[in-house]
């Protein structure tokens, strides 16, 4: 995994820094050098992500695929580690709580809390992709049987319905009742469905509460407010820590923004317009490139409603669409040519399911890892902020 590679080099870096601490303490040049390295590493890491060809020879490595997202989260983890090294290692802790750094860090901390919530929401989103995967698996297991008969087709259709509605769910409606739910095979209203049970509220439509976040929580608003006080450091602040805090914030915002666009997430209206990164920074070029690419995709999808830009979901949606056409027009026995076409689509769908099966849990674990890392850094930075500042009366 690329993460371990970066991790090692990062650890090596720490030990070097530790040696330098004594000699370089408070050395301004060292600080500038560190900043430059951080910028270069950040730029390089995102450039690698952007340069993945759309039709990569490695299947599943394409832009916005599961494995691409895993790389994206890895990059964030690496940047975070380097940022923390820059911020904490070899620094006189009394520098931290002084203005303007204290203010910047407090804003940064506010942003990290939002990232934590987004991590949870995205992780819940991954669970709902798994629901899609399971529905698609039903379609696959129905249609990969030979010969395909009425029974298989009906079975596939029953799974395709909720699958398609899950894939095209428009999160603006915040309507998850349609979400990957299996429905009655006929229109039951429960009015006369046997008299021996208590007619309770549970008889209403089944509301799946797959979303773990609060009702009014909005991914778009979270990202918006993360950006609201994210300003480019002014001339006087270009040295020191203002710059790394800005870079780290930008990276963080971009990555969670991409995750929210790719993975089903609660309330994302207007996601494409939320933040802008000035073009003058070298490290930001690839980020801006990706942001434009994702933003365009998002605008396209936002119109017709989509659960997420995840490449596998997009392909699943396309396949689902043509399989629905197939099952709707099905008459036994089907033409051999049609069957061949369907077999290929089913095979592709099976391959996507396989990829989801292999990739989603690790992605979820990485998001969890990100959560942990942010919590840990947060604690450390808050400690630094608290320890240095003049104590408040406790009584």
């Amino acid at each position, binding site marked *: 995994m690329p993460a371990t590679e970066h991790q090692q080099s990062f650890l090596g870096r720490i030990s070097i820094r530790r040696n330098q601490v004594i000699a370089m303490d408070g050395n301004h040049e060292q600080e500038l050098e560190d900043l430059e390295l951080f910028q270069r590493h950040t730029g390089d890491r995102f450039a690698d992500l952007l340069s993945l060809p759309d039709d990569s020879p490695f299947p599943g490595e394409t832009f916005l695929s599961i494995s691409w997202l895993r790389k994206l989260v890895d990059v964030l983890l690496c940047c975070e580690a380097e940022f923390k090294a820059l911020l904490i290692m070899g620094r006189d802790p009394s520098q931290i709580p002084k203005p303007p750094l204290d203010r910047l860090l407090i804003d940064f901390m506010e942003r990290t809390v939002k990232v934590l919530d987004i991590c949870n929401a995205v992780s819940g989103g991954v669970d709902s992709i798994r629901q899609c995967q399971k529905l698609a698996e039903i379609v696959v297991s129905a249609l990969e049987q030979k010969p395909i008969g009425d029974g298989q087709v009906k079975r596939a259709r029953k799974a395709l319905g909720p699958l398609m509605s899950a894939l095209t769910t428009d999160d603006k409606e915040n309507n998850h009742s349609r979400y990957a739910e299996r429905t009655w095979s006929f229109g039951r209203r429960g009015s006369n469905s046997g008299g021996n049970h208590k007619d309770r509220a549970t008889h209403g439509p089944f509301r799946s509460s797959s979303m773990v976040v609060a009702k009014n929580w909005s991914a778009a608003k979270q990202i918006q407010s993360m950006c609201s006080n994210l300003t480019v450091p002014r001339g006087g602040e270009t040295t020191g820590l203002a710059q790394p805090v800005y870079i780290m914030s930008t990276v963080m915002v971009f990555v969670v923004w991409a995750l929210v666009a790719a993975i089903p997430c609660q309330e994302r209206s207007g996601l494409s317009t939320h933040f802008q990164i000035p073009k003058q920074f070298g490290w930001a070029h690839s980020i801006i490139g990706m942001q434009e690419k994702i933003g365009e995709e998002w605008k396209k999808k936002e119109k017709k409603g989509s659960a997420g830009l995840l490449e596998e979901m997009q392909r699943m949606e396309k396949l689902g669409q043509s399989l629905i056409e197939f099952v709707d027009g099905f008459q036994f026995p089907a033409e051999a040519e049609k069957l061949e076409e369907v077999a290929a689509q089913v095979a592709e769908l099976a391959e996507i399911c396989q990829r989801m099966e292999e990739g989603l849990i690790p992605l979820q674990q990485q998001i969890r890892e990100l959560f942990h890392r942010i919590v840990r850094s947060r604690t450390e930075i808050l400690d630094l902020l608290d320890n240095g500042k003049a*104590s408040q009366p406790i009584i």
Partner: protein
Amino acid sequence: MEAPENYSTSTFAVPFEDAKKIILRWDSTASDEARERMIFDGDREEVDLYLQAVDEIQKSMSSTSISPPSSSHHHDQDNSSNIVNSAIQIAMARLEDEFRNILINHTSPVEVDSLLISDHAPAPASSLNRNTSSIRSSNEFDQEEVGGGGDHVDALDPIQRADSSNSSASYRSTSSIREIHLIPQEAVADLQSIAKRMISAGYLRECIQVYGSVRKSAVDASFRRLGIEKLSIGDIQRLEWEALETKIRRWIRAARVCVRILFASEKKLCEDIFYGIGTAIDDACFMETVKGPAIQLFNFAEAISISRRSPEKMFKILDLHDALMDLLPDIEVVFESKSADSIRVQAAEILSRLAEAARGILSEFENAVLREPSRVPVPGGTIHPLTRYVMNYISLISDYKQTLIELIMSKPSTGSRYSGDPTTPDMEFAELEGKTPLALHLIWIIVILQFNLEGKSKHYKDASLAHLFIMNNVHYIVQKIKGSPELREMIGDDYLRKLTGKFRQAATSYQRATWVSVLYCLRDEGLHVRGSFSSGVSKSALRERFKTFNAMFEEVHRTQATWLIPDSQLREELRISISEKLIPAYRSFLGRFRSHIETGKHPENYIKYSVEDLESAVLDFFEGYPVSQHLRRRSQ
């Protein structure tokens, strides 16, 4: 088509054609009647007939699929297999609906409210055999969580009441898990017979999904009743701590019910329905049902565990920690499977984060005590609010001793004796060997409290008052320690003796600072006139001496009456100690020199006070309010 004879061997079997008819009759996409009625809501014979029909169709499906494709009959073969497949699909769709219907009929949420309150009302006079009908519990009945009354039983399906005889059979070894029957046994049997057929026909995924969606909404309903909210971490960080304290209390109770009753019962239900059908199916269904709710439940504790650390949060964090610690073995049982890894791990992580938070808060507290910045001296040298706060805090800490002894593993990071750092006090651990790190922290907190108080004492202009302040505060510390057996045991008698010595020393220092100069007036030196035979005492010097003494005593009396020793015993002791020095010295001085004054003019100008006057004047000391008039001569 197969010959009917094949079926006569089996008593309950239905011939294929009949089976097909039965299936088609119940095709809910075809007829109104099939749509209106549910098989499992009706006649048992109908149910049995339908299930046999499904079995028959499945049997013929496996026979059509294994028969070798013959080239000549290929088309026929396909056709018949299509018919069978179609029938299977219709049957499975029907069974799925039946399965859903049975589940829905039994989704009345558990009356968790009554499980929450400690309710030990006597068993109702109904035929209900108390909660044996619904709760399979261990002998050890935890009164806190499970309502003993029958009201929650009422919420369960009536069938369940009839079921009381065969339900109390199985017990879990874990004493705290209490499974209740969410669905009566008969319905479980129906669900099981449907599940078996769906799974053998390859409809496992459908079965899991239907199961999960219905049960999940039942769990959601129970969550709402328990008042488990969906709050984002951001929301929780913004809430006032007092509001969160209430939520923590509620969460603890809700989490117990969730893990031990709700989730455990869901698990049991899965095991009951899917028992013996394939491997890990029960587990898949269980996770499908509770994964989301479990994550939602733990999110709250997680958000608390990462909130900003401040001293006032300590005790609720510890409550949360203890509650989770207590639940952890049960969480491990309920979420034992591999697929529930993430939940077990998350619970353990939250627990360790709460422990971390408690440690962080303790050191935060130490910092706060060390740096508490108030500079305005408390009037009268009485007990500083900081002292009260800190001592109350650490006696609360001692109430949580059991937990904290395990959590606090490292010694406090104290200043070393030779550090020369004037901003941190020193502390020697050598003499405190054998103490737990927690005890060392408590002692350390007392050390830094004293250090801070020493600093504050310097803001008194009067050195005597500074000593009195230290005496009062250290005495208070000692009293608080003595008042709490837990605290006393941890601090230990050695350190307590040290503290006692310290306030005694402060008392001595006070007396020295105030009284040495007063008593100095009562010395003999300087009064005798050299070479004189007649009296040998200089009257003018003596008069001067009396006047000085009177003035000094009056001044001390006036100021120190406004000083305060809140502890009556300490106040009494100090006054006695003052009297013991002052009174004999004055009496003897008076005895030796009274005559010299009384033989002169206006003796009352010099001997203003009798011994008794002084004795009673000392009683005005340290009461904390000014004496209204000048010291009067009371005994004349």
